[in-house]
C-alpha cells in the first residue's frame, strides 16, 4: 500500500472476514431454499435435500486437497525444461 493512496473498503481490517461470513449466510439460505420448491429429479440422488450443495462443497474440497497432493508427484522447478 503506497502513501496517500485511496483507502479501499476491502483493505480495512476484518473486511475479508465479513465477506467470508456473508458467503456462509448466502450458502445457508440457498441450502434451505430446497424446501421451497418441488423437485423433478432425473436421478434419485437429486431428490436428496441439498444434494447440489453437498456435492459442490465436498467435491471442491476433495479437488483442491488431491491436487495439492499431486504436487508431490508433478511439481518441478520453474526452469525444469530449460
Amino acid at each position: 500500500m503506497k502513501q496517500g493512496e485511496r483507502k479501499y473498503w476491502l483493505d480495512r481490517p476484518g473486511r475479508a472476514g465479513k465477506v467470508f461470513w456473508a458467503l456462509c449466510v448466502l450458502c445457508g439460505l440457498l441450502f434451505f431454499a430446497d424446501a421451497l420448491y418441488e423437485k423433478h429429479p432425473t436421478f434419485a440422488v437429486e431428490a436428496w435435500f441439498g444434494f447440489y450443495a453437498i456435492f459442490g462443497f465436498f467435491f471442491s474440497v476433495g479437488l483442491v486437497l488431491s491436487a495439492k497432493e499431486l504436487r508431490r508427484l508433478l511439481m518441478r522447478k520453474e526452469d525444469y525444461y530449460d
Partner: protein
Amino acid sequence: MIEAVPPGLILIAGACVVPFLRGPLRAAFMLALPLLGFWQLMQITPGTYVETRFFDYTQVLFQVDRLSLVFGYVFFLAVLISLIYAMHITDTVQQVAGLVYAGAAICAVFAGDLITLFAFWELTAIASVFLIWAVRTERSFKVGMRYLIIQVGSGVLLLSGAVLIVADTGSIAFGHIGIDSLGGKLILASFGIKAAFPLLHNWLQDSYPEATVTGTVFLSAFTTKLAIYALARGYAGTEMLILVGAAMTAFPIFYAVIENDLRRVLAYSLNNQLGFMVVGIGIGTELSLNGTVAHAVAHIIYKALLFMSMGAVLYRTGTMKGSELGGLYKSMPWTTGFCIVGAAAISGFPLFSGFVTKSMILSAAAEEGYWFTWAVLLFASAGVFHHSGIKIPFFAFFAHDSGKRVKEAPANMLLAMALAAALCIYIGVNPAPLYAILPFAVDYTPYTVGHVIASLQLLAFAALAFAVLIRYGFYPLETPSTNLDSDWIYRRLLPKWIAGLARGLRDAGAELDRWREASLRYLLGRVFHYHGPRSVMARTWPVGGAALWVMVLLGGYLVVYYL
C-alpha cells in the same frame, strides 16, 4: 455474386493487402473484413455454392448448412473482438498471421470435402504458429516448433485417413465418418489432436500461454473449436467420445488448481470446456448436439474475454504468475469487472452465457441415463468455477496486494472486453436468438426454479469450499513451478531415450570395431604363422621326407584295398 466467394477467403485476401496499408487506414480496413464476412453469412442460405474438379473427384470449396453457419457466425465475431483487442499493435506479422489463421479456420468450416478441409486444416497450423513466434524469443521459437510439429502431424493423419476413405468409398465428401474403418480411426485421431483429447492435449497448455498478449486471444477461438465442429460433423453419436469427453472435463482441473501461470490455468480450463462439447457429440442426440454447438459459441466468447483480461494484466505488469500478482483491482478496475463477467459465464452462473448452454449437455447426459458421465460433468462444473471462476480473478486482482500499481488497460482492449462481456450477459439473459440458429429445433428451458437453485447451490458451496480452504490455510499457495504433464514424454523421456539409444549404438559400434580388429589380427597372425617366412608352409622340404609320406599313403591304400 456473394455466393461465389467462400467467406473465409475474404479474410485471407484481406490479409494480403494489410502490409500495404498504414495507420488508421489499415485499422479500419482490418475491422471491415470480419464485418463484411458476417454480412455475407447473413445473406446466405444453406446449400452448395462453389465446386471444382479435383482429378476425378468433386471438390466442394463452399458449402453451408445449419451446423457450419453457427460456427461461421461466431468465428467472425471472434475475429472482430480479437482485432479490436489487438488494435494498438503495429506488428504486421501478427496482423497478417491472425487474419490468415482465422480465414483458414472459417474456410475449413465451410469445406464440403476432406481434401479442402485438409488444406485449410494445415493452413490454420502454419498461420497460427506465427502468433507464437511473434514473441521473438528463443523460448517462443522452441514452443512454436513443438506446436507446429504436432499440428502438422494432425494434418498428416487427416490426409492419410482421407486417402483410405476415398479408396473405400470413392468419394471425398465430408459427412458422417464413424470409427468402423481404419480411415475413420485415423481422422478421429487427427481431430482428437486438435480437440486436445486426453494425452494428445498438451500442445495446448504448452503453446497458448507462450503466444503474444493478443495472439493468445486469436488462438483460443479457432483451432480447438474447428476440431469440435469437425467432430460434430464426422463423429456425432460415437459413444466412445462420451468417456473421452468426461475424462477431458475432469483431469485438467487438477492441473488448473496447482498451475501458477494464469494463462496456463485458462488453457487447462479451455481443455475442460472442450470436454463438455465432446461429451455432447458422443451422446449424439439433438439436445446434446445443440448443447455442444451452443456451448462452443458461448465458450469462444467468454474464453476470449478471460484471455483478454489476463492479456491486459500481462501487458501492463509484464508477468502472468499468480505468485507475483494480486491487488490489481485497485489499478485495473474495469479489467477486473470484465474478468469477473467472463468468470461468471464460464462457471455457468444463472444470467450468464455458460448457464444456458452447458446445462443442455448435462440435461442430455441425464436424459440418456449416463449417470456416471453426468456426475463427472457436475464435478467438472464445480471444478471450473473453482479455478476459472475464483482462482483467476482472485489471484490476479485480489488476494494479497502485490504492490503493483499500473495503468488500466488501453481503451481498445477495454472496448473488446466490454463487447465480449456484453455478449456473455446477453446470451445468458436472452438465449432465444442463439437457440434459434442451432442445428436442430430447440425445445429446452434453461430457467426453471429447480435448475437455477441447483446451480446456485453447487456454485455457492464450491465458493464456500474455496473460502474455507483459504481462510484456514489449506489452500495450496501459488508457487513458481513447472508441473509435469504429458509433454514430459516428448520433452524429457523421448529425448532421454533417444540419447540413450544413440549412446548404446555408439558403444555397440565401438565394441564391434574392437572385435573386428581383434579377429583380423588373429587371422593375420595365423596366416603369418603358417605362410610367413619362417612358417611351416614356407620351409624347404627334404626329398626323403616326401618319399616317406608317399610310402605312408601307399601303405594306407593297400590296407584299405585288402579290407
